[in-house]
């Protein structure tokens, strides 16, 4: 359920050295906020099936969503960025979180897969530990979100 967008990236051949200089990123949007994430941090994309509210004190973690025979906790990334999800049928982004699989409700736009030159990726620590840095995917400069540690070290709004 990912769209690939390789054509916009610099193409220098298919040898291993070139591959090593590239970073695979997934670009998705939450309430219109475009974000990039490392592909290895993503477990899949599914239709959003609705959620079960959990009376929780944990910031942005206040629901469960069904997945197959079980369920996943939901991180409300839209609330973190003070956004509202766009119209349309939202999607469920399954994240390989350090504490176990985690679901994020994202906009209906299907995430796209980008190969980004490592030189176009800048990792830097900022005020929000959930943001790893920025990258240029396509013609956009996008924040890179740390999905695997989402909410672990920061419960603050973005």
């Amino acid at each position, binding site marked *: 359920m990912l769209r690939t967008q390789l054509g916009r990236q610099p193409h220098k051949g298919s040898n291993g050295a070139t591959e090593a200089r590239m970073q695979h990123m997934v670009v998705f949007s939450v309430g219109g906020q475009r974000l990039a994430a490392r592909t290895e941090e993503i477990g899949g994309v599914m239709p959003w099936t609705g959620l079960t509210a959990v009376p*929780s004190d*944990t910031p942005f973690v206040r629901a469960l969503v069904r997945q197959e025979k079980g369920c996943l906790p939901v991180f409300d990334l839209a609330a973190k960025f003070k956004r509202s999800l766009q119209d349309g049928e939202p999607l469920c982004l399954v994240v390989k979180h350090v504490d*176990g699989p985690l679901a994020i409700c994202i906009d209906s736009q299907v995430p796209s897969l980008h190969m980004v030159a490592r030189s176009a990726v800048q990792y830097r620590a900022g005020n929000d530990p959930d943001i790893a840095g920025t990258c240029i995917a396509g013609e956009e400069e996008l924040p890179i979100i740390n999905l695997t540690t989402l909410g672990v070290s920061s419960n603050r709004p973005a």
Partner: protein
Amino acid sequence: MGLRGHKTAVVSSGLAVRFLVALMGPTHVAFPSHWVRGIVTPAEGGQDGHVTWANASYERTDLARRLTIQAKGVTAETRIVLYANEQRSRSFAVDKVVGLIDVERTLIQPLPAQFRGGERERLLGLFVESSYIALIANPFWVLELPSRTNVLDVFALRVSERRPGEFDSRLRLPSAALEEASAMSVGSAK
């Protein structure tokens, strides 16, 4: 006041825990039924903050507020659950009683680790039913008692020791509820 049904979600001969499932606001909350002493209507519950039933007194607690759930308010389906162990008793309102369900111990999931706040004290875990996900209230927290580890093991029953249709003798509901629940459970319990 009766239960809406008794369902068995267990097919193996392992351990199971019997829950009373109730709706509080939009949330399905499951209470280990071992400590359910009765279910009464608000009118039967009295107005002075205590419910007296079968010569026992149950202090009222606003469980929805403690769980930070927005309850619906009193409706025709509101019930007061009488909950107690040997040490403590409490009564609390629920918006609707869904019924009793036996859940195999292995099908009970802990609260995912991403939940890191006070909910970990209040909720022991969850189980997934066909039409809902039920959150399991910590019965020690409900009774405002110090919690302990492996709480659910206290309530686990060996399924193979019960005959089909047999009701848990430790569940002492008011007689009307027990009769109704037993009648509804015939043919559904395995």
